[in-house]
């Protein structure tokens, strides 16, 4: 099937305004008759629930954490982009649009990206109005810094905790609506099924994580804002509870999964220290404003203290390879460059898996206090984890899985191919193409939540009669029965291996064979090993306790089972995409100097997969991408 993203046509700068006018409206008195479910309360979900509640819809919001304030958006450190052009350095909506399309290696839709760039400015205003304490200069104006993949300063920030402050802004707006009674909040609930009635999304089945009870909720539309799936690599910068489960359940009910192979490996994370480790910690990309990446030129210097390696024996490889962007090369490029140095045997620290991020030049230029003011909390976090003082000794960093550009397929209205199912934020695939630029995840989450879904959901609901399906519909009962039998199956295996042993194994396979570099051979290998591991899981996993209680082992088992299925789809997608683009690097497709080589003739499309049943191959659908404003070109940061 050829998919249609239903993008508006005509001059790009008019597309969103025209579309907004063309969308049907639900009149204020009728809005309260419609019920909308929002799953996930990060930037996208929290902002959507608050904004839809304020408009007058009856909103029910769900999250697995104990409070909507804890979603993993909170961990974003560096900043949020907007095309305000306050520094007078040549920025514009068009430039942000251009940088994002190019940064995504020409694998995103133009109209979606234009809209993102256009509403980016509204987001900053909205957050300021909420009391988000963005960094300001002494005169009181908003301050900016630079991020990778851009030659202008357009990143707004709140120390090293921008995600936290933006999320608390959305949480405060959500809290206001909860108090007003327009949003009913259900924390500590995990979505375990999407209920589809006559082909239309009408509700969800969730597990109450405290009591273990399964609960049904019906609505006129369901919004998933359930984040990304890079915990499929086991070790990642995601929170422990981040999973593919909600998206996967929707996929199994017919929603198409788009571009799962586009995963972002973030260049600056604290290297792994041991096998026991449960997660990796990001060091914000903003550090590359003041930090310089290097490795020793000579292998015999590897054992030396970095101070003892003279300047002429250091290889500032990003500055050498990409002189015009230097240390601010985009993430995919910076990550691959770090890997290249380590593969060459010049990596530092345990296992030779690390490069230096050195602040001494900047400390010399602006002083330690300024650096402390800019990144103090990051240096503190680094010291807690590694017991090293980065003011005195360069940080050691290494790439780690961080973000999923792929996600459920949505059209321009953020609606999936299942009518009534909307997907927001990282959970959808829409704007980042094959590589996301720094400081644009926060932008997308809030754009979708505050400024897109409040308009586009109206266009859908205006054509739907409210409240036609309730939880008494047999599909809800069937959904609960399916979830119960799946849960009981997990509990009844009673094997010998723990859930985390399986998760570590699948994560290891994914990192080694489908991580920063992929080949036909490695992917084919995974497509043999992962199904075998899945089979072993269902014969030999040990899950303790019962379903009718707070049971974290059972929660993890369910998420791992879904990751085992999803890993196979990710590898299938990576195998089919015979090109390198952005975060998807196929070793067979590279230039002589090791850069990614796209194949626009054959792969300039969104690959969206349809579930056809267990044991059957998924079916690939394509949405061709057209570039009418930013011309397809080889991406260069040299």
């Amino acid at each position: 099937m050829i998919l249609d993203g239903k993008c508006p046509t005509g001059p790009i700068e008019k597309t969103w305004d025209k579309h907004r006018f063309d969308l049907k409206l639900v009149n204020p008195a009728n809005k309260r008759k419609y019920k909308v479910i929002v799953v996930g309360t990060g930037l996208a979900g929290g902002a959507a629930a608050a904004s839809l509640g304020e408009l007058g819809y009856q909103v029910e919001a769900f999250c697995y954490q104990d409070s909507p304030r804890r979603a993993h958006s909170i961990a974003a450190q560096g900043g949020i982009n907007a095309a305000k052009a306050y520094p007078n350095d040549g920025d514009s909506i068009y430039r942000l649009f251009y940088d994002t399309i190019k940064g995504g290696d020409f694998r995103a839709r133009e109209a979606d990206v234009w809209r993102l760039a256009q509403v980016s400015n509204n987001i900053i205003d909205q957050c300021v109005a909420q009391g988000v304490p963005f960094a300001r200069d002494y005169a009181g104006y908003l301050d900016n810094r630079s991020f990778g993949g851009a030659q202008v300063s357009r990143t707004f920030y709140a120390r090293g905790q921008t995600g936290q402050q933006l999320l608390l802004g959305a949480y405060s707006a959500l809290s206001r609506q909860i108090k007003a009674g327009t949003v009913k909040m259900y924390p500590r609930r995990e979505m375990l099924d999407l209920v589809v009635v006559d082909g239309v999304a009408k509700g969800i089945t969730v597990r109450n994580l405290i009591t273990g009870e399964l609960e049904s909720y019906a609505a006129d539309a369901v919004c998933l804002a359930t984040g990304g799936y890079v915990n499929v690599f086991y070790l990642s910068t995601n929170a422990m509870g981040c999973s593919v489960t909600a998206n996967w359940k929707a996929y199994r009910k017919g929603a198409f999964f788009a571009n799962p192979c586009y995963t972002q490996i973030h260049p600056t994370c604290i290297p792994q220290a041991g096998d026991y480790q449960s997660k990796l910690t990001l060091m914000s990309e903003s550090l590359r404003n003041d930090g310089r990446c290097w490795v020793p030129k000579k292998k015999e210097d590897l054992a030396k203290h970095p101070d003892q390696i003279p300047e002429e024996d250091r290889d500032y490889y990003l500055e050498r390879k990409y002189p015009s962007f230097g240390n601010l090369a985009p993430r995919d490029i910076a990550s691959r460059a770090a890997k290249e140095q380590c593969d060459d045997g010049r990596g530092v620290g345990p296992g030779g898996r690390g490069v230096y991020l050195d602040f001494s030049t900047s400390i010399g230029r602006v002083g330690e206090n300024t650096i402390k003011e800019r990144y103090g909390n990051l240096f503190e976090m680094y010291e807690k984890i590694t017991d090293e003082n980065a003011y005195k000794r360069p940080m050691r960093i290494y790439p780690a899985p961080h973000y999923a550009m792929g996600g459920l397929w949505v059209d321009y209205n953020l609606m999936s191919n299942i009518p009534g199912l909307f997907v927001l934020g990282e959970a959808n695939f829409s704007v980042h193409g094959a590589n996301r630029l720094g400081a644009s995840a926060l932008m997308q989450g809030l754009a979708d939540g505050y400024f897109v879904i409040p308009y586009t959901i109206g266009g859908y609901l205006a054509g739907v009669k409210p409240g036609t399906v309730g939880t008494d519909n047999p599909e809800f009962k069937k959904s609960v029965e399916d979830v119960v039998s799946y849960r009981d199956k997990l509990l009844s295996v009673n094997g010998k291996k723990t859930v985390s042993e399986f998760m570590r194994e699948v994560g290891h396979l994914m990192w080694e064979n489908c991580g920063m570099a992929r080949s036909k051979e490695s992917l084919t290998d995974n497509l043999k090993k992962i199904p075998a591991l899945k089979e072993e899981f269902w014969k030999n996993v040990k899950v303790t306790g019962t379903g009718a209680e707070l049971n974290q082992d059972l929660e993890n088992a369910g998420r791992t089972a879904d990751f085992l299925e999803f890993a196979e789809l990710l590898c299938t997608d990576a195998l089919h995409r015979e090109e390198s683009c952005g975060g998807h690097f196929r070793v067979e497709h590279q230039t002589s100097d090791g850069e990614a080589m796209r194949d626009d003739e054959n792969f300039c499309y969104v690959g969206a997969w349809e579930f056809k049943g267990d044991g059957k191959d998924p079916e690939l659908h394509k949405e061709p991408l057209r570039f009418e404003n930013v011309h397809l070109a080889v991406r260069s940061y040299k």
Partner: protein
Amino acid sequence: MSEHKTMTLTLNVWRQKGPNAPGKFETYTAKGITEHHSFLEMIDVVNEDLIKAGKDPIVFDHDCREGICGMCSQVINGVPHGGQERTTVCQLHMRKFKDGDTIYIEPWRAAAFPILKDLIVDRSAYDTITQAGGYTSCHTGGVPDGNALLVPKGVADYAMDAAECIGCGACAAGCPNSSAMLFTSAKVAQLAVLPQGQAEAKKRVTSMVDAMQECGFGNCSNHYECQAVCPKGINVKFIAKLNREYLKAQF
């Protein structure tokens, strides 16, 4: 991976099956722990052993494991988050302990945070306090340009110092009165100094303080334990600010 010397520790962990069940300490041994394990990774190791032995693992709240989500909440040897300055449990590393140590692990203890199971408590009271007024009542859209109201750096920094609160609940758990004053004051102070929050300052402080009392938290009697255990180092000066704002709101 490099080899590390390992430690063996004795853990006394609070186990409680449900809100109304009696709880008690159970003793476990944590083996093969290195200085690089985080405290939660140490518990992961114990839990793996428990699962393999067919026993119920210790349940505890945790999520981001990088000190920002505010989910983790354990009292370690009598101190919320374990006593390392400005550190959540998830960022506490085992290099702070030594081989042979005995460690006591308990949930938050405060009447307004009822225990749900083992080390997990119900902290929804903090959401209730926020819902009472921890926001500016701006609508989505229709707000002025971000630079329309200037906020001098000193004011923005003060607001940010307060806004760093992660809502973990350690302040109330560490306070002999189970007071939530530090948590409440951080939000009140942040929004009281910013021009965007000033229009509603009086109403906000009154409703948030009322909500705090209705939730069953005690009052502040200046022990400063809250600041000592706060993983973000939120300063008690914000409590003084809260009191001033509260007084101002009475006139």
